[in-house]
């Protein structure tokens, strides 16, 4: 029977090639959407390595002039005392608010891109690394998990190296199975004037500052020496604080915070301040990433519906055109179900061809490496899901036409000459 169907389809290649083309295009569209969905779903399911609850970032802009001479990235410089004073005063006031469990400095907002980066070089290998400058105790306070060594302490005070806690991914790519604690990483291979040296004191599991929908990247945590030598890294005319609360109603708390900061603004040279609860940042991050996917999904669903109608129409037309053939087959002893099987099989075989041709097209993507995110495991799972979807679409679209083919009355079909 299968061979007969192949013969039949080959002899009808003209009308079948059109359906095939339609199926291939559908497959390609389905594949892209499904790859995108699986990609994002996987990212979403990876842990971000910290909790967003109860954390608030407060960013304060002062009117201190911006001294571009001292801005050298991660290089130490002496912070303008004016800013230090403003920060200390602000912290003193904020710490006294009811429900504040801890107060830290931090250099970058979570669930956003941007922030500090550096190279991390060791043994002929350089990795690109995100850098967080935070005060002691901050990582543990946001629920990060240490898996080797310690969080930094003040041991690097006055040294020409900084103690660094690195992510497991960075540890794996630079050190592999070798011991890591006490080892040194530098910012560049060459020892030029801008070389910065880091001594690894600990390894943490994961930190995805950019949020659930961002590709994980290497991270390195450095101590922002808030207390002690008072040198800071990249804090110019503004600074950010991380406030960790406990048992507060976030609406009321935000109101309270606003009142306190406004009062502060009238006594200190604060130009403006902004309050960013991490939960809100996270929610915005979700909306920002999920909305385009939903929009695209709607467009694609609509398109697949149209294609489905098209397929359905073409198939139905096909059955009507072949009413006589079906009548002949019935007259020669075909049962209704074997006629239905034939139509469905023809469609599914076409679907398989579309999948095969589609495969040859999409396999170019991971081979060429043109779409970086589409690595092999994502490719295979998208391929499987989109192939099954296409075959289901074929089967569904041939349900009614094949059923109507079983209703062909041989006498009626052969009556018309």
């Amino acid at each position, binding site marked *: *029977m299968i*061979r*007969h169907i192949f*013969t*039949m389809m080959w*002899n*009808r290649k003209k009308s079948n090639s059109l359906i095939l083309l339609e199926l291939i295009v559908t497959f390609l569209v389905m594949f892209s959407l499904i790859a995108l969905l699986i990609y994002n779903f996987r990212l979403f399911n990876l842990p971000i390595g910290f909790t967003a609850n109860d954390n608030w970032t407060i960013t304060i802009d002062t009117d201190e002039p911006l001294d571009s001479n001292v801005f050298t990235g991660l290089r130490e410089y002496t912070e303008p005392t004016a800013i230090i004073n403003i920060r200390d005063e602000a912290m003193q006031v904020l710490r006294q608010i009811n429900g504040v469990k801890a107060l830290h400095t931090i250099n970058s907002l979570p669930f956003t891109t941007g922030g500090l980066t550096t190279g991390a070089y060791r043994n002929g290998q350089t990795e690109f690394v995100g850098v967080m400058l935070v005060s002691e105790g901050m990582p543990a306070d946001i629920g990060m998990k240490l898996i080797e060594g310690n969080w930094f302490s003040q041991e690097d005070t006055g040294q020409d190296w900084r103690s660094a806690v690195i992510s497991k991914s960075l540890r794996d790519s630079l050190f592999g199975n070798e011991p890591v604690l006490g080892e040194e990483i530098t910012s560049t291979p060459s020892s030029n004037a801008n070389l910065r040296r880091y001594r690894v004191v600990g390894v943490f599991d994961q930190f995805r500052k950019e949020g659930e929908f961002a590709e994980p990247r290497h991270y390195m945590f450095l101590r922002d020496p808030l207390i002690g030598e008072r040198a800071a890294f990249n804090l110019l005319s503004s600074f950010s604080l991380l406030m960790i609360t406990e048992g507060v109603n976030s609406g009321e708390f935000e109101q309270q915070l606003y009142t306190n900061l406004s009062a502060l603004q009238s006594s200190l040279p604060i130009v403006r301040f902004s309050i960013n609860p991490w939960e809100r940042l996270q929610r915005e991050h979700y909306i920002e990433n999920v909305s385009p996917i939903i929009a695209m999904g709607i467009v694609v669903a609509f398109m697949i519906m149209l294609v489905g109608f098209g397929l359905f129409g073409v198939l139905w037309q096909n059955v009507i055109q072949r009413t*006589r*053939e079906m*009548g*002949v*087959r*019935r*007259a*020669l*002893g*075909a*049962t*209704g*179900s*074997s006629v239905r099987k034939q139509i469905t099989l023809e469609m599914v075989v076409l679907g398989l061809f579309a999948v095969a041709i589609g495969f040859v097209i999409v396999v170019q993507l991971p081979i060429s490496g043109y779409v970086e995110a589409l690595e092999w495991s994502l490719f295979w799972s998208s391929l499987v899901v989109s192939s099954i979807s296409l075959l289901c679409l074929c089967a569904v679209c041939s349900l009614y036409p094949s059923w109507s083919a079983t209703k062909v*009355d*041989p*006498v009626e079909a*052969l009556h018309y*000459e």
Partner: protein
Amino acid sequence: MIELKDTCKTYQTKNIETLALRGISLQIEKSEFVSIMGPSGCGKSTLLHIMGLLARPGEGAVYLEGEKINSYRDKDVARLRNQKIGFVFQSYNLIPDLNVIDNVEIPLLYRSVSGKERRKLAAEALEKVGLSARLRHFPTELSGGQQQRVAIARAIVGRPKILLADEPTGNLDSKMGDEIMDILEDLQQLENTTVVMVTHDEEKARRCQRIVRMFDGQLVH
């Protein structure tokens, strides 16, 4: 072999009801060669369709080899049709998308016959009708007489006991028609096939053992 008892058939179209058969009782013996004659529209094709289990009678009973078919399910009727009956139509009804040998194989697709066996049986059937040289041709590349021979090969490929032919020579000139008659005659005489043929042609009807005449849905004696 085939027996009809008081068979009636009405066609119901929008507002007209056509009484195509009005109580036909007819018995056809094994290996008989019977022709059915009558004016156009008198119900010959309808009668043949009912004998060939392509249509169900409105009233009356149909017996095939002594078994009453009326209450059979569609699936079982299809099986009987496939195994016991061969059909030849006036307008050949070959499938244009299939070549000669693929057309002839069709009845065997609906039985459990291996692909190799199918090829062999189809080639044999085509040899019987003298078309061994045209296996890969498509129906449109053949003359009317050749197409009808393919149709006969298709009807007999499954070795049915009964061959029903509805004006098989109606579209052919008399020489081609005679060739078709020779084939039918051979089938009946050499293989003991029961042949029932509808025709308008007195001369061809006379080559049969028995002539059944019809008029307005009834047998004429």
